[in-house]
């Protein structure tokens, strides 16, 4: 009996990973957005201190890793500059851009402590392989936020490659910036500024006794 319960529990816990395969893009989006909301509502550090680090980490691990196509995001963000990068450079770019996206996407949701998400009417055909799912995040006393997910069909699974907040793509918003960066310092220049951003602000100078 104990074994059976353990087995059932194990199935329930791993369920989100495969249970959504075969469902439509709206259902799949709903499934992972619900996971994000659950993480936010249950994260002690966020609820009591407003600190977002652990929630961001959990959102990344359980939702973004399996659901977001970071390679596609990076190439989309870089536009025509993407092809100028060597395979090694592309790999580094994806790694750094992923870090940036995880933080940016999470920050759009962790400003809420008790969010509710409604799904607005999304227009797409059953044969489409690229769709935009429209959501709205609500919390009393706060401005509602329109967050759209752009997904592509890969096999039976829908993967996110763009997130649009109030009409602003968190991904393509870097286009002009990357064009400028590559013009000034080449692909390596773009990598450098991503790395600098991801390392965060420099630590305050040490106080000499």
């Amino acid at each position, binding site marked *: 009996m104990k074994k059976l319960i353990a087995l059932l529990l194990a199935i329930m816990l791993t369920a989100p990973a495969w249970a959504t395969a075969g469902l439509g893009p709206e259902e799949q989006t709903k499934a992972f957005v619900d996971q994000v909301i659950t993480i936010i509502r249950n994260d002690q550090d966020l609820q009591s201190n407003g600190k977002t680090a652990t929630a961001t980490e959990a959102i990344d691990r359980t939702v973004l890793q399996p659901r977001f196509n970071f390679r596609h995001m990076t*190439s*989309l963000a870089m536009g025509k500059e*993407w092809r100028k990068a060597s395979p090694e450079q592309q790999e580094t770019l994806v790694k750094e851009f992923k870090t940036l996206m995880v933080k940016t996407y*999470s920050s759009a949701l962790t400003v809420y402590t008790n969010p509710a998400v409604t799904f607005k009417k999304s227009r797409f055909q059953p044969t489409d392989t690229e769709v935009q799912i429209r959501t709205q995040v609500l919390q009393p006393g706060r401005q509602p936020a329109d967050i759209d997910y*752009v997904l592509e069909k890969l096999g039976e699974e829908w993967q996110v490659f763009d997130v649009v907040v*109030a*009409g602003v793509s968190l991904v393509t*918003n870097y286009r002009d910036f990357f064009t400028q960066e590559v013009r000034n310092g080449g692909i390596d220049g773009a990598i450098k500024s991503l790395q600098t951003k991801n390392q965060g602000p420099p630590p305050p100078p040490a106080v000499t006794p």
Partner: protein
Amino acid sequence: MIARQPYLRLMAVALLLVVTSGCAARQNGNPRDPWEGYNRAVFSFNEGLDRAIIKPVAKGYEAVVPTPINTIITNFFSNIGDVLTAVNNLLQGKVRDSASDFSRVVLNSTLGIGGLIDVATGMTFEKHDEDFGQTFARWGFGNGPYFVLPLFGPSTIRDSFGLLADWQSDPLTYVRPYVLRDSVTGLRFIDTRADLFSAEKVVEAGAIDKYAYLRDAYFQHRNYVIFDGMPPREEESE
């Protein structure tokens, strides 16, 4: 009219200066932002002003004013804004939306006690977002160059003229005495700033170059509202 509104005069001068300075676009610059030098200077000025005065005041406002009162204040200004939205929807030929906006104003001003409570949204009269900049866009005017306004931040030449028209048709502009008009306008400014704290978090997380990030976000967001939330998706250039 303009003489009594120092900011309008300042903006008119700035517009004139920039427009008459002609196309001094740098060869390597961003084609949408030929006046990047001027824009970055005004941007830093605005940032300094925000850090020193506006943000602390808005923080204090948020800390002191309880959430329900804050909502009431936001609703009050939102109701006044709906007048402008209704007019602009009409000017864009969206008669049905315009009628809905006017209904919102009537319902919220009466049942909603002078706009303090937004009863109309619950009655399926959805809130829209319209202004003269969007109307000019619908009439076929392009953005023109990016143009950062002192105090008000990101804009374009078209949207700056839009903003001038917004002010002329804003009921608050005609409130007298002037001291009352200025106090209420100031309150609206701070209330709007306080509502931006959430968006600011995303900008902090995402921006590598804050100036460029806000500029590109401005263009995207304007495109989004001009097309009423349904802009055509950009082609991928991969």
